[in-house]
C-alpha cells in the first residue's frame, strides 16, 4: 500500500507541473498590436444566426454594387448563435483566427474590453476617413456607436430608436391621446384596463423588455447622463431618483398592465399580441418595423400603428426629445487582416448598405442612403422623420454594465415584477454586482 502511494505522488506532481507549464505558456500570449495588416484569402463575415437580414443584404451587395470587390476578395459567411458570441470570438481571437469582419459582445470591443485592450478592433473612423468614405456614416449613428462602445469600432448596420408603439384604434375607442407624462401613462393604462384592454405587451421571458422601462424612467427622471454617473461611481442605483425607476416598473406590473403570463411571454408572442390588437401598447425598438410592415403579421393595419417617445417624468431632468437609440450588435473588423482589399469592401458597404437595406428590407441603418428609395411604408417614414428631428440620444439601462450585471438585471426583473423582490433589493443587488466588477 505504501509503495503504491509513493508511486502515485510523482505522477500527480508531474501532471500538475505539465498543467502549470502549459497554462503559463497560455498566459504569456498577450495582446497583439493593431494596425493595418495583409489581406486574407477571403472576406469572411461572422454574423448572428438570429440576424438573417444582415447576411442577405451583404450577399445582395456582393452580387451587385460590390461585385468588383467580391471578385477581388470573395465574401464568405460564418454564423454563430448570438448567445455564443463572446465565447466564440474570444477563442478565435486567442488563436489569431478572427474573421475579417465579425460580430462581438458589447463589453468586448470597448477600450477596456478584451478585444479593445488587445488592439484587435479597427477604428472605422480612421479607416473610412483615409478611404474617403467616412461621410457615409450618419453623424447621429456615429455618435451613438461612440457613446456605447467608447469608440468607432462597430459599423451601424441598424439604427434603432426605442419608444412606445401604440394602437391608434384602441386609443380612439377609449378616448385617449398620447400621454405626455408618466402619470398620464399610468392613468391611460388604468382607463384601458377598465375598458377591457390589456395596456402593454412586454416579453418578460427576455428580461430586457421590462428593464428598458426602468431605464427610461431613470433617464427621464435623472437626465441623459444618468447611467454614466452609475458607471463612473458618481451615483448609486439605490439613490431615491434611481430607485423610482424600479418602483415605477413594479407599480405597472402590479396594476396588471402587462397581462396574465407576461413573465413567460416570448418576444415573438408579445409582438403578435400587439399586432393582433390584444394589447394597446408595446415598448420596443424600431427593429419591430419588419414585423409591423408585414401584412400577414399586422392585423390591426399600418394606419393604426402609432409611435411615441417614453413620456416625461414630472419634475425630472430628462426630456422626451432624448430618444434611446442603438446601432445594432457590434460588428467589428480585424486589424490584422484589414489590407487594401478588405478596406475596399468596407468602403463599398459604407457607400451602399443604407440604400440596399432600406429598399430591399425596409431596414433603417446608420449609413447614408445614396440614392432614391421609393415605396417606403408609412410607419418606416414616420420613424425616419423622428430620426431626422433628433438632437440628443440616450443608451439603455444595461448598456454600460459589465456582462454579469447585464445578465443579473434581466434575470432578476422577473422577481421584481412579481413582487418577490422589493425595488430596494433589486437595485441593491445590481449595484453590488456593478461595484464588484470595478
Amino acid at each position, binding site marked *: 500500500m505504501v509503495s503504491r502511494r509513493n508511486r502515485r505522488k510523482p505522477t500527480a506532481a508531474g501532471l500538475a507541473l505539465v498543467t502549470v507549464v502549459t497554462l503559463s505558456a497560455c498566459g504569456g500570449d498577450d495582446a497583439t498590436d493593431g494596425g493595418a495588416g495583409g489581406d486574407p484569402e477571403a472576406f469572411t463575415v461572422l454574423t448572428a444566426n438570429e440576424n438573417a437580414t444582415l447576411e442577405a443584404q451583404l450577399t445582395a451587395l456582393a452580387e451587385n454594387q460590390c461585385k468588383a470587390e467580391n471578385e477581388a476578395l470573395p465574401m464568405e459567411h460564418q454564423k454563430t448563435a448570438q448567445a455564443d458570441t463572446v465565447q466564440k470570438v474570444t477563442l478565435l481571437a*486567442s*488563436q489569431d483566427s478572427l474573421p475579417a469582419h465579425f460580430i462581438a459582445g458589447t463589453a468586448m470591443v470597448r477600450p477596456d474590453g478584451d478585444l479593445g485592450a488587445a488592439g484587435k478592433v479597427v477604428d472605422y473612423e480612421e479607416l473610412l476617413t483615409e478611404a474617403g468614405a467616412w461621410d457615409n456614416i450618419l453623424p447621429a449613428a456615429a455618435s451613438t456607436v461612440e457613446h456605447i462602445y467608447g469608440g468607432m469600432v462597430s459599423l451601424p448596420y441598424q439604427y434603432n430608436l426605442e419608444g412606445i408603439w401604440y394602437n391608434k384604434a384602441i386609443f380612439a375607442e377609449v378616448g385617449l391621446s398620447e400621454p405626455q407624462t408618466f402619470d398620464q401613462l399610468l392613468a391611460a393604462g388604468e382607463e384601458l384596463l377598465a375598458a377591457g384592454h390589456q395596456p402593454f405587451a412586454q416579453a418578460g421571458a427576455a428580461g430586457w423588455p421590462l428593464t428598458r422601462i426602468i431605464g427610461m424612467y431613470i433617464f427621464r427622471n435623472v437626465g441623459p447622463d444618468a447611467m454614466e454617473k452609475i458607471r463612473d461611481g458618481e451615483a448609486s442605483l439605490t439613490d431615491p431618483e434611481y430607485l423610482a425607476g424600479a418602483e415605477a416598473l413594479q407599480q405597472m406590473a402590479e396594476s396588471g398592465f402587462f397581462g396574465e403570463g407576461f413573465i413567460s411571454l416570448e418576444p415573438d408572442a408579445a409582438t403578435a399580441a400587439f399586432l393582433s390588437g390584444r394589447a394597446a401598447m408595446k415598448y420596443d425598438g424600431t427593429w419591430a418595423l419588419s414585423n409591423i410592415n408585414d401584412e400577414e403579421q399586422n392585423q390591426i393595419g399600418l394606419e393604426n400603428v402609432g409611435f411615441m417617445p417614453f413620456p416625461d417624468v414630472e419634475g425630472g431632468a430628462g426630456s422626451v426629445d432624448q430618444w434611446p437609440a442603438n446601432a445594432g450588435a457590434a460588428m467589428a473588423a480585424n486589424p490584422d487582416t484589414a489590407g487594401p482589399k478588405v478596406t475596399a469592401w468596407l468602403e463599398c458597404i459604407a457607400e451602399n448598405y443604407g440604400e440596399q437595406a432600406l429598399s430591399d428590407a425596409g431596414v433603417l441603418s446608420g449609413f447614408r442612403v445614396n440614392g432614391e428609395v421609393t415605396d417606403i411604408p408609412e410607419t418606416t417614414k414616420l420613424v425616419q422623420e423622428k430620426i431626422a428631428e433628433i438632437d440628443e440620444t440616450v443608451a439603455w439601462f444595461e448598456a454600460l454594465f459589465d*456582462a454579469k450585471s447585464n445578465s443579473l438585471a434581466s434575470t432578476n426583473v422577473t422577481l421584481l415584477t412579481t413582487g418577490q423582490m422589493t425595488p430596494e433589493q433589486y437595485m441593491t443587488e445590481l449595484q453590488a454586482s456593478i461595484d464588484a466588477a470595478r
Partner: protein
Amino acid sequence: MNRVFGDRKTILILLLPTLAIYVLFKVVPVAWSLGLSFFEGNTLRGFEFVGFDNFTTFFSDGAALQSLRVSVMFAILATIGQVTFGYLLALLYVFVLRKGSAFLRTAVFFPMVLPTVAVALLFRSFVSVGDTQGPVNEIINAAGGESVEFMASTSGTMAVALAMTLWSSMGFYAVLLYTGLLDIPDEVIESGRLDGASGLRLVRHIIIPLSLPILLSSIIFSLNATLKVFDSLLALNNGGPGTSTAPLTLYMYRTAFEYAEYGYGSTIALVLTLLCLVFTLTVFRSSRQRVED
C-alpha cells in the same frame, strides 16, 4: 490464453492505446481544469496566477452559494422521487403484473429517450398561462380556481422541474431495479411466504434487504445525474425566476462562457466534482455500515 495474459509486455501493448486515449481525453482535461482554478482570465486576456483567490471568492459569492443550494436540493428531492417511484414500479412489474409487464415497462421507459430540452418545452407549455394557456391551468380554471403562473415562482418552477424529471426518468430506474428484483431467488421469497411473511412485511424484511445493492447503485446513479442537472432547468425557465432555480452547472456555464471568467468557472466545476464525490462516498459509507450491522 493464460500464457498470453501472463506476459507483462502483451498486457502493456494491449492496454497502452486505451490508456493513452483515456489520459489524453480524460485525465489531461481534468488536470487542466484543476490547474485553471488557480488562475484568473481567459484565452484572450491571458491568465494570471491568483492562488486560492477563486476558492475564497466562491465561498463569499452569494450567487454561487445559492446555486449550490439549488443543486443539492434538486438532487435530493429528485433522487428520493426517482428511486421511490422507480422501486414501486419495479415491485409492480415483478409481483403484480409479472410477465405481462412488458408493455408498461416500455411505456414508462419511453420518455427517457426524448431529448430533455423537448421535454422541458412540453412541460412549460403544459403549465403556461395567458394567451396560450396550457391544460394544467385549464383544469384549475374548470375546478373553479384561478390560473397559477408556475414559472413566476421558485417553488412553482421547482415543482414543474421535479415532475418533469420524475416523468422522464423513473422508467429507467424502474427497469434498473426490476433487474435487481429478478435476481432474488424465488425459493427465498417462497420460504418467506411459508414463514408467514406477506405484503409489506415480505417487502420490508426480504425484498428490500436483498435488493439493497442495486438500490444503492440507483441512488448513486441518480444523485450524480441530478447534481449535474443543466439542460432541463435551463430550457424550462432559464434558471429563473431571477436566478432562484439556477443550478451550479448553469452558474458554471455562465461564468466561463458568458462572463469569460474561465478560472472561476473551473473552480465551480471543481466544487461540483467534489460534491459528487462527497455524496457518492456518503452513500457508500452508509451502505457499508448497514452491511456490517
